[in-house]
């Protein structure tokens, strides 16, 4: 058949269908990798190819999860960990954004604070946990402060970078149209830096989860990290895996939420 006799709409429709199939295939791939791993794990564990004491089959972990939820204790641990994560997250993000915007907008502030931030950033907050415990005691505050401390740095650094990289011409426009410092802050710096800032917040969220587990392992008597640690010590590996899977589940959930927030907050991108 000669090409010019074909219906162009039909051709495009066919192309469109092909693209749809490709997309579905890709979605399938995204789901298939975790499922594949779980099935493989189940198989290896059941057949004794790996030691079921160290790697109990996923179905048994699910069973343990159900049993643990029934007692209600699990939700206590989840609740307390989520509370710590959220409070610590907010306590880190809010000052980081405010300080970052000021540093980005006013170069004297930037020059003054940059060395402090650069010097403090490489110190893992967890290494400071003993000091934090001495200052804030063993209560909730110390965990929240630990998380806040580790969330703060990626957010502040990305916020500064976000403001500094705003195209100069928008600053000129704002200047030319008589913007005062409040306008600069809310109409230019904040929205202009937001895309890069959100990337920092995403990083901060991941770090918050890493930190909470470690902090609860070291100095707490509740929370998912505590659950993992005590289960491990008592050689209750199924319970430990429940804790680990929960952490990875929340990590996934939070990044989905932030991703959704990103498209909501950045309609102009």
């Amino acid at each position, binding site marked *: 058949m000669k090409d010019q006799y074909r219906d162009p709409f039909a051709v495009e429709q066919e192309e469109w269908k092909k693209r749809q199939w490709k997309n579905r295939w890709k979605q399938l791939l995204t789901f298939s990798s975790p499922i594949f791993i779980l099935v493989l794990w189940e198989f290896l564990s059941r057949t004794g190819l790996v030691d079921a004491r160290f790697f109990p089959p996923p179905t048994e972990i699910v069973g343990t999860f159900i049993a643990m939820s029934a007692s209600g204790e699990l939700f206590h641990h989840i609740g307390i960990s989520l509370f710590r994560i959220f409070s610590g997250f907010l306590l880190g993000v809010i000052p980081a954004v405010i300080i970052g915007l000021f540093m980005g907008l006013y170069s004297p502030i930037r020059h003054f604070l940059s060395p402090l931030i650069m010097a403090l950033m490489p110190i893992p907050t967890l290494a400071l946990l003993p000091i934090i415990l001495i200052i804030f005691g063993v209560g909730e505050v110390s965990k929240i402060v630990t998380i806040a401390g580790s969330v703060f740095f990626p957010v502040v650094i990305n916020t500064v970078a976000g403001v500094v990289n705003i195209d100069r*011409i928008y600053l000129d426009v704002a200047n030319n149209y008589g913007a005062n410092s409040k306008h600069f802050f809310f109409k230019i710096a904040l929205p202009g830096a937001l895309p890069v800032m959100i990337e920092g917040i995403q990083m901060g969220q991941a770090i918050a989860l890493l930190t909470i587990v470690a902090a609860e392992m070291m100095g707490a008597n509740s929370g998912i990290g505590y659950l993992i640690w005590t289960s491990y010590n008592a050689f209750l590996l199924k319970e430990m895996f429940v804790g680990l899977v929960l952490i990875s589940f929340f990590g996934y959930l939070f990044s989905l939420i932030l991703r959704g927030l990103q498209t909501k907050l950045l*309609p*102009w991108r």
Partner: protein
Amino acid sequence: MKITIDELTKVFYKKGQSLTALEGIDLNIQDGEFVCLLGPSGCGKTTLLRILAGLEKPSTGSFEIAASGKERPLQSMVFQERGVIPWLTVKENVAFGLKMRHLPKSVVQERTAFYLEKVGLDKFARLYPKELSGGMKQRVSIARAFANDPEILLMDEPFAALDEQNKFILQEELLSIWEETKKTVLFITHSIDEALLLSDRILLMSSQPGRITEEIKIEMPRPRTMEEVRADQTMTEHFVKIRSHLDSEVQGSRT
């Protein structure tokens, strides 16, 4: 006089290197006049505009923009390109200057709507700039400047990045808004045609140091169209004269 520039010189100085961008600029522009600045690339046109816009300070000399009202801003600038803020909608961009001045909501609303309609963007008011073509973005820039109702308008090659068709349309739109508002306009362009079409007066600049070397009054009655401008005998003479001036400036700066 609306704009008075007196012996204005601008030197850029960096690490022992200095560059005289503007030298001894003396210029008077009357109220309601449309003046075009024409000169080779790098002769300091943008620098002069940025000084008038308050974005840069003159090294020596001074300028004054006469204020008529109490509440009016002195000037608004239409930037070369990319001047539309991407995180604000079309409407918010046009309202930008008015909001900065804390005018009552109703005034902001009314003036924004008026100029959106003038440039034919009322249907696109809620879109973000990423969804606009280059021509539409420049319309937003122009509407924003006019809506701000400044004493004078400064325009830095607003149509340079547009294709011929869009350029013609926007030039006509600009002229029709200008004839209604009779604003004082200082307009930079590289296009001789554009300058002839728009100006009451054309200022020619020399390259480095930038000086105003010649001025040409354009007496052709308005409204003008590009066809009339191109067909007109005197305009053709102006064209040739400006062309040879620019050529010799470019040649001069190369040797």
